[in-house]
């Protein structure tokens, strides 16, 4: 082989060498891109929180590990940023050199997450703590327990039970979803809540007498009363006057948006016989699609916008809170902004709301117009904007017709009549003012609070079984087979006891109700001669019913 040949060969081999190095470079670039895409999640412990993490890594590693997985950790938001308390906060105490508070409230979260907090505070979620003054609460506090402690029946072997805490049911049940009223122990054995502290606009107490009574542990820590803490109920009433708890949905300490996007998150509270939204979602086609396509729904996306980041199926968050392509991807922390009927009360109400977000009950149209700040149509449009990412406009409007008809049918056939029956019984003093001490009160409660409500929810979220068998069927059963007979029994008993006018008033109401066309199938036919045909009118053609 001549020298020249060798030169040429070497030149060619060098070229081949360079080509293979270019390939190596290309692989390196691809590797770097992949690394960047994976997103190195490096938790950064900010300076103020380093001693917190060192100690708690050993004493409560779960908290630290959760936090390290959060976006807070990547951005250098550590323990002190949320837990720091100002001098003057009622629950603040010195902990290894830093003044902190255990409970983090929306006021704290709202320092950085302003928009979300404002929307949340305006929503009904934040007011969930209002249940503490409601009928439901009476059930849990008094019927299921006792507002004052009572003596045990007999000894419990192995335990020293001297007093029974009758508030246990409401503390562990209602309050864990609806939110407790955070209470500190007082030196005189009582409890101190915001009703005692009267916090100002800055969250600091104005009643110093109450502050003086705060009972503190040896290390200076104010003691949170077990009836109110631990609690992450969404409507928690906090010591600084703020309402709610962000950790209800954004569980601490990783505050994962991914988790909040999934129905299981809402399902901690939105399930059960009286509002089975989770079960209804699972029955519906939405839920069926979700369960199948969950892996493709891009749950970890930073912005999770329907129509942009995913389209496979909606979750609770999708319809009620998340952003979609039609509304510019804007998330709302006030689900009420998209709800057109409120199905919570015995009789569903249209969601025309005032400036405070309360439903306008005024009937006079002129006065209504003045009070209404946001109409039910606006809310429905906001919801429709979600639906039309997958469904056509006609489809959506026809669905809403079905839904409206269903609610109105329930309202008019069973809810309002039921209310009337209960009202007349109360007026005539045939039932005591005390709730739940008579059977009919339970019966009526089941009808509207459980069966009627889940029927309406089933209709609203396309779960036919909940709408019908678990819903209206049971409503009808309850109404005809229990409410009416029980009311009549009470009237009968009244008459026997000599109170004929009351009995007459009750019977009149019932008879008038049952004389209405929609109820005639029940009683009227009994009054006809036995030879009469059951069906008195020819069946109504369907096209008439379809008239809007």
């Amino acid at each position, binding site marked *: 082989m*001549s020298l020249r040949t060798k030169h040429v060969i070497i030149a060619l081999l*060098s070229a081949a060498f360079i080509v293979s190095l270019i390939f190596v470079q290309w692989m390196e670039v691809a590797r770097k891109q992949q690394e960047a895409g994976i997103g190195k999640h*490096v938790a*950064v*412990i*900010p300076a103020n929180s380093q001693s917190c993490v060192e100690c708690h890594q050993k004493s409560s590693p779960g908290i630290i590990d959760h936090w390290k997985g959060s976006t807070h950790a990547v*951005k250098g938001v550590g323990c002190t*940023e949320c837990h720091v308390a100002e001098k003057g906060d009622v629950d603040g105490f010195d902990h290894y050199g830093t003044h902190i508070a255990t409970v983090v409230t929306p006021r704290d979260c709202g320092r950085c997450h302003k*928009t979300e907090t404002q929307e949340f505070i305006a929503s009904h979620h934040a007011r969930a703590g209002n249940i503490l003054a409601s009928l439901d609460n009476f059930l849990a506090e008094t019927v299921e327990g006792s507002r004052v402690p009572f003596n045990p029946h007999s000894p419990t072997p192995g335990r020293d039970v001297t007093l029974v805490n009758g508030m246990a049911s409401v503390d562990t049940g209602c309050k864990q979803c609806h939110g407790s009223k955070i209470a500190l122990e007082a030196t005189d054995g009582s409890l101190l809540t915001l009703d005692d502290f009267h916090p100002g606009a800055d969250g600091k107490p104005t009643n110093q007498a109450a502050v003086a009574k705060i009972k503190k542990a040896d290390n200076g820590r104010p003691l949170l009363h077990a009836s109110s803490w631990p609690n992450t109920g969404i409507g928690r009433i906090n010591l600084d006057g703020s309402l709610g708890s962000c950790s209800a949905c954004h569980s601490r300490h990783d505050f994962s948006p991914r988790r909040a996007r999934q129905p299981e998150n809402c399902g901690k509270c939105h399930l059960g016989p009286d509002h089975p939204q989770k079960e209804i979602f699972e029955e519906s086609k939405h839920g069926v699609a979700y369960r199948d396509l969950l892996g493709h729904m891009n749950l970890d996306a930073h912005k999770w916008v329907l129509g942009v980041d995913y389209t496979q199926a909606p979750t609770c968050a999708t319809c009620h809170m998340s952003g979609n392509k039609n509304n510019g991807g804007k998330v709302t922390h006030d689900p009420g902004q998209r709800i057109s009927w409120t199905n919570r009360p015995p009789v569903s109400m249209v969601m025309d709301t005032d400036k405070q977000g309360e439903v306008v009950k005024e009937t006079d149209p002129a006065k209504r117009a003045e009070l209404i700040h946001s109409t039910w149509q606006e809310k429905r449009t906001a919801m429709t904007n979600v639906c039309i990412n997958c469904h056509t406009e006609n489809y959506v409007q026809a669905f809403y017709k079905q839904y409206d008809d269903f609610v109105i049918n329930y309202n008019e056939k069973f809810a309002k009549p039921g209310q009337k029956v209960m009202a007349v019984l109360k007026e005539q003093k045939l039932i005591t003012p005390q709730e739940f001490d008579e059977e009919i009160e339970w019966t009526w409660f089941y009808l509207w609070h459980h069966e009627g409500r889940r029927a309406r929810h089933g209709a609203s979220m396309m779960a036919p079984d909940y709408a019908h068998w678990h819903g209206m069927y049971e409503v009808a059963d309850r109404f005809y087979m229990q409410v009416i007979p029980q009311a009549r029994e009470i009237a009968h008993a009244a008459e026997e006891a000599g109170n004929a006018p009351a009995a007459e008033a009750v019977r009149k109401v019932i008879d008038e109700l049952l004389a209405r066309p929609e109820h005639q199938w029940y009683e009227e036919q009994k009054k006809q001669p036995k030879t009469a045909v059951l069906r008195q009118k020819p069946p109504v053609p369907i096209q008439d019913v379809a008239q809007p």
Partner: protein
Amino acid sequence: MSESETPLPPSFDTQPRRSFLTSASGIAMSVGLVAGYGTFATMLGRFVYPTAAQNRSWLFVCTIEALALGEALDFISPAGVKIVVARQGAGTSSEDFLALSSVCPHLGCRVHWEGPQDRFFCPCHNGVFDRQGNPISGPPRASNQPLTRFPLKIEAGLLFIEAPVTTLACRTDAGASPPGTPTDGVA
């Protein structure tokens, strides 16, 4: 095959050097070799050069309301460096804020703020800086080295600073020691 080979020389080859090197094939060969091994050497150099770029990350400082016009706060980076963050404009863009390193650009000592004299002072060699971080006197003035500025950004009303996060002094997730290794014994 052997005709064009160089014959065995009594001493170094008798062919003049130039023709060997200036022949086309010789040039092609030389260029190829230099290019090939040169690229390889460059890659080795890249390997050795420390990847400092990834060591910074955007960290939360405070809400913009927390810092009033004319006020300053000390941000201690996870690496333990004190950075002075001040607000100089009433607006809400990142130009209204200033983040100055407290590390003297001369030889790395820590400067401190002297309020009464309205200056940053470095005790090592008497370097002096104004409130903007510009050098006024001392060695930094002589070489015109101001205090380093850290990038700032504002998102949703929150102030973020781009600061180093992966130095030995700073504890991060990546620095976790394997199980079974003795810890520092810090309580």
